[in-house]
Each structure stands twice: as structure tokens, then as C-alpha cells.
């Protein structure tokens, strides 16, 4: 069936199905959400007001049999950063939206009355239903209730209490094939959905299918593409150890942010490492390998059980474990897993909230290493919307302001992730220049700075970092449009058959003749579109900087600072 734009107006409580405008036809995923937000959202609007819009777009290849194509992009103006935002996640929703013939779902306006709603999307359009039973409930309760309430296995997109309360660290959760949750984590998009009084969205494609223009060419391209992924040693390592394998290598490199970014190595690193997690999972009968969406051949996720063999959490990622582990100095994987589960249920970004906890520890609200305290604050304060809970639920910058802390690791008010920019300078450029605030996936220089993938660039000197970040940010923006998981990038950087096969897949799906140059131009277009939105929203080059302490405080063990001048950082945009 031909793809359409599904539009829901929460002011009038109406929904419509529209033709795809020509300017949007070639886009998907992040390219589409950013194009729509830039076209329809006033850059100076209040992100929690009626003039913001939230856009859900499957990728160009979502809903097909292409390996690893199940990512859903969600975009809006971010209440955390004030910039344009795109955050993508796995789960089943992307493929189901694509099969329902939905190129993008746009939710706009805001209900005037204090009532809550849910949306039900099918190929015929969107039904808006009033919702009362599940308001105030966590994400797991929503998924469980809907399993009995609804027939079949619809896709589910949901917000927890944090999103309902419009906290800036609120995420959007997407149900995975096993009933677990994947998170569209960064930038507070859960608060935007909450500001429109939408608690959850269900997706039922009925017997809708994605039509491939050239099915034989598609199958052949997928064969080459999937093989490139499966053959690459990073894919294999990810399946065995998950992303948490990074704890030990980043610790060894001296760039693991520890104790609220005061050290580059964590004494307790062994207890929270991927190796320890792997052994613990096996001992307790969990699952070492797990995919977050059907068709993923890398399977980097896992199922982590408690000491009694009961499932505690899944999607137990390096970022989450680093943040609660090294940054907050909690060296107990079980405490971290409990906190991870709580954050998934309440619906807050594990990076933002955990870094916020680290700033709170700096402020003396609780002690570094107090894992029980972290869980208590999540359960009793954040989930219940107390004063302290709202300060923490609004992110690291919010805690810093409330308590007068200067060591606050954020860029454009978004918390810095699991790599210290002083010891890994390439990622510092990405943090500073990304259109989305401090973000590691936007231009993952770690691959080349630390992991020797796609070449080698010394992490401790300035040379080559701006170019590295630029090339990766351009490529990533393009990949984020395809619905592909970013982890295909490891194979794409090393195996010269991979990227051409990806382009062949897009060409066969839509009967196009795109080249590698077109992919690069798509990436550049996306970054420039996003930057133009930010400029109109009031951002300048002065916002492309790291917090003051990174320039002055030397990070042990290398005793390094971030020493790029503003002029040097600004050369990033020379394209």
C-alpha cells in the first residue's frame, strides 16, 4: 500500500490520513522527523506547549526483511535541550508502523481539558480514546494490561509516570518482541508526549505489508548486507558480551568518567564489567544474546536475572551500567539492574537520570556508591513527583542549578555519556557540535579513537578529531534515516561490501538509483536542517562548547584537559 502521513490533532481530538508531500517523499527515520519538525514547528515555541509537535517515523527500510532495520525515530523540539531532537529505538513498533502504511505519525496541539488519551493506529487511520485506568501507572503495567485488553500483538509505545509529569528526562518506551521495553531515551520526548496527554499508542497493521519495488534485487542485497554484519568480529563480540564489554576497555584507556567526572578510571570496574555480567547471566540462567527487534542479526541485548533466577531487566547497556556504576561509584551489578528496571518502568533516560544522580552525589544529597539510595530516590521521589524527584527527573543540569554545583557534565543541558572528552578528544568534538546536545551515538568517534575500527586516531591529541567527528556525524545522520541500528556501522566502516549493499537495499525498495554521494549529501542536509532550526531557536556557536571544568580540571590517570579553542571547534561546520 502507498505510504501516508497520519496526523492527530489533540486540540480538536481529530485525526486524518494525508498524502505524502513531495518534499518528504525521499525521507525516512531521522531525515523525515527533522524535515517535518523544521517545516512545521516554530523554533521558539515552548516544547511543552501546543505549538510543539512530536513525530514518529519508521526508517526507509523498516518493515522489510532487511537485517537490523527495525529502528523507530521520534522527533520534536526537546524540553531538555531546547534544540531539535531525534531519538531512535528498537522494539516492534517501527516495522508495524511501516506495514500499516504509516510513513510518519504527527501528533500536534494540546487538549484543553485535563483528560488523558490513548491512540490506536491501524491502516485506516488513528482512533483517539479517552484513557483513565492506566494513568499514573508505570510502563510495565501498561504493557501487561494491554496484553489482556487488546487482541493480537499490537506494537506499543508508552510513557511512564515521568512523561505524564512532563519531566525533562522522560523517555518514550517501545515494546520489544518479548514484552520488554526499549527506550527512545535522550532529550525528554516522553514529556512532549505527556504534554499532549497521550499515555500510549497501539499499532495494528492488520494484513498490511511493505511493498518492495524490486524484490529479487532486494533479496540479493540483503544477503550481502546480512553476511557483512554477521561476519564482522564486532557483531560477534556484541552478541556475546553486549555493549557492556566496553567498561574494561574504556577504563583501561583512562576515559571512563568516574565519581561525577573527576577520574578516568573506576576501582570497581571489574564488578560491573561485561565479562562479569556475562558470567553472572550464565550462572543465573538469563540470556546472553537477545535481539531488540525481529530481523536483528547482532543480538547485543541480554536478559539479566536476579540471584533467584527471576528476570530483573533487559536492555542492560554499557551507558546505563557506566552511569550508575562508575559515575555514581556503585559497584554492585544487582543494584544497578534494579535501578535500570525502575528507570524503565518510570520512563526516564538512564543516562540523564544517572548522571543527575552523580551531580546529586556531588551536592551531598546522597553518598557516592549508595546504590540503595539511588533506588529509593527513583521509587519514592521521581516516580511520585516530589520536589527532589522533579529536580532529578529534570536532568543533570537541573540538579546542578538547584544545588549550586559547578561540575555539571552537560552540553546544551543534556548529560554527557560514558566517555570523558578530555581523554577521548574526538567524542568531545561530537558532544560540543552535535545539533542534539551531548550525545555519543550522533558521531561515535570511539570506534576510531579507541576501538581501531575504521582506522586509528589517537584519543589524547587534537589531530584529526574534528574531521573524524564530522565524517561520522554526516554518515550517522544518513544511517539514522534508514531504520538501521547504528551497530551496522562497525561492519560498514571496515567491510567495503557493506555500505554499497545498504544503498542497493534502498534502491531496490523504492526503485531508485542512489549513490554513495547521495548518502553523504543526505547526511549533510539533515545536519544543516537541524542546525538551522537551532539557530532560529536562539543557539549560537557559543553553545557548541563543553562546560568550563573540562578545560581546567586535569583528568587522571593521563592528567589531561579538553584543549580545543572555540575557533577550532567551529571548523566542524566547514562543509
Amino acid at each position, binding site marked *: 500500500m502507498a505510504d501516508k502521513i497520519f496526523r492527530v490533532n489533540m486540540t480538536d481530538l481529530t485525526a486524518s490520513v494525508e498524502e505524502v508531500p513531495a518534499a518528504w517523499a525521499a525521507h525516512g527515520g531521522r531525515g523525515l522527523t527533522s524535515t517535518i519538525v523544521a517545516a512545521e514547528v516554530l523554533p521558539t515555541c515552548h516544547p511543552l506547549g501546543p505549538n510543539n509537535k512530536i513525530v514518529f517515523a519508521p526508517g526507509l527500510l523498516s518493515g522489510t526483511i532487511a537485517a537490523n532495520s527495525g529502528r523507530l525515530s521520534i522527533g520534536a523540539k526537546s524540553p531538555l535541550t531546547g534544540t531539535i531532537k531525534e531519538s531512535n529505538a528498537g522494539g516492534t513498533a517501527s516495522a508495524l508502523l511501516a506495514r500499516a502504511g504509516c510513513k510518519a505519525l504527527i501528533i500536534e496541539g494540546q487538549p484543553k481539558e485535563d483528560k488523558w488519551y490513548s491512540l490506536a493506529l491501524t491502516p485506516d487511520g488513528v482512533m483517539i480514546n479517552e484513557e483513565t485506568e492506566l494513568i499514573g501507572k508505570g510502563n510495565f503495567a501498561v504493557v501487561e494490561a494491554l496484553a489482556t485488553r487488546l487482541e493480537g500483538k499490537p506494537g506499543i509505545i508508552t510513557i511512564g509516570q515521568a512523561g505524564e509529569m512532563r519531566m525533562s528526562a522522560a523517555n518514550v518506551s517501545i515494546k520489544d518482541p518479548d514484552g520488554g521495553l526499549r527506550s527512545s531515551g535522550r532529550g525528554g520526548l516522553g514529556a512532549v508526549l505527556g504534554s499532549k496527554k497521550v499515555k500510549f499508542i497501539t499499532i495494528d497493521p492488520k494484513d498490511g505489508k511493505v511493498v518492495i519495488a524490486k524484490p529479487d534485487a532486494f533479496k540479493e542485497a540483503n544477503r550481502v548486507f546480512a553476511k557483512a554484519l554477521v561476519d564482522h568480529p564486532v557483531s560477534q563480540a556484541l552478541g*556475546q558480551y553486549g555493549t557492556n564489554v566496553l567498561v574494561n576497555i574504556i577504563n583501561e584507556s583512562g576515559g571512563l568518567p568516574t565519581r561525577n567526572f573527576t577520574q578516568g578510571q573506576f576501582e570497581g570496574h571489574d564488578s560491573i564489567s561485561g*565479562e562479569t555480567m556475562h558470567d553472572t547471566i550464565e550462572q543465573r540462567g538469563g540470556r546472553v544474546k537477545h535481539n531488540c527487534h525481529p530481523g536483528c542479526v547482532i543480538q547485543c541485548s541480554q536478559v539479566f536475572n536476579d540471584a533467584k533466577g527471576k528476570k530483573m531487566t533487559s536492555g542492560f547497556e554499557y551507558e546505563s551500567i557506566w552511569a550508575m556504576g562508575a559515575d555514581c561509584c556503585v559497584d554492585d551489578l544487582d543494584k544497578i539492574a534494579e535501578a535500570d528496571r525502575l528507570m524503565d518502568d518510570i520512563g526516564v533516560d538512564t543516562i540523564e537520570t544517572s548522571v543527575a544522580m552523580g551531580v546529586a552525589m556531588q551536592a551531598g544529597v546522597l553518598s557516592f556508591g549508595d546504590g540503595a539510595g539511588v533506588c529509593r530516590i527513583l521509587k519514592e521521589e521521581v516516580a511520585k513527583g516530589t520536589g527532589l524527584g522533579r529536580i532529578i527527573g529534570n536532568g543533570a543540569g537541573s540538579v546542578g542549578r538547584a544545588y549550586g554545583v559547578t561540575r555539571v557534565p552537560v552540553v546544551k543541558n543534556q548529560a554527557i555519556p560514558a566517555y570523558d572528552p578530555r581523554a577521548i578528544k574526538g567524542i568531545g568534538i561530537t558532544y560540543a557540535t552535535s545539533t542534539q546536545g551531548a550525545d555519543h551515538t550522533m558521531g561515535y568517534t570511539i570506534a576510531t579513537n579507541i576501538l581501531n575500527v575504521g582506522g586509528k586516531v589517537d584519543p589524547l591529541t587534537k589531530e584529526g578529531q574534528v574531521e573524524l567527528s564530522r565524517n561520522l556525524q554526516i554518515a550517522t545522520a544518513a544511517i539514522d534515516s534508514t531504520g538501521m541500528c547504528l551497530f551496522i556501522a562497525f561492519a560498514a566502516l571496515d567491510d567495503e561490501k557493506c555500505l554499497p549493499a545498504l544503498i542497493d537495499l534502498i534502491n531496490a525498495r523504492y526503485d531508485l538509483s542512489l549513490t554513495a554521494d547521495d548518502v553523504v549529501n543526505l547526511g549533510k542536509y539533515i545536519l544543516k536542517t537541524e542546525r538551522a532550526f537551532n539557530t532560529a531557536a536562539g543557539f549560537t556557536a557559543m553553545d557548541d562548547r563543553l562546560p568550563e571544568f573540562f578545560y581546567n580540571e586535569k583528568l587522571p590517570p593521563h592528567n589531561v584537559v579538553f584543549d580545543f579553542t572555540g575557533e577550532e571547534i567551529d571548523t566542524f561546520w566547514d562543509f
Partner: protein
Amino acid sequence: MPSCAKKGSTSQGEGSLQMKITVKLFAYFRDNRFKIEQREIGGETTVGDIVDSLDIDREEVGVLMINSRHTEFDVHPAEDDVLAIFPVVGGG
């Protein structure tokens, strides 16, 4: 201050001059080997020699570090150096 690791071929008198270094293995390299070990090496021993002596296929090596800095197969570790050997890994 980290010890300096020397690149290229250096003769230190007799090849029997022994130095103590620490070797750390990660991920599946630990299987049937060890996590961390002290060992004595001669002045002419390279990182590559150590990898070979552990029966690790050089093709499988992803990252090598001495004292938290990236290093190469042809480097000669110095006294008290900490050598870390990682297979090819990735993440996010």
C-alpha cells in the same frame, strides 16, 4: 609518569636481561588463559611476541594498550609496564 615503551629493535646486552611486566586479558581471551598475570620478559621481547606466546591469533586482536595508551605489535615493553590485550569489540 608512565614508563616509556620502546619501538623497534633494541639490544640490551644479553637477551637474558629480565624485566617484570603485567599482562591483562579481556573478554573471551580470558577463556582457558587468565585475567591478569605478572611475567618476566627480555629486552628484545615485543608485544607481538607476548601475544604469540599466549596462543592468541594476531588477527583476532582488536586493541593493545601499554599503560593506558594504544600500542602496536612491534613495541618493546619496559620495566613495570602494564600490557592490556583486547579482542575486537564494539558498543555504544
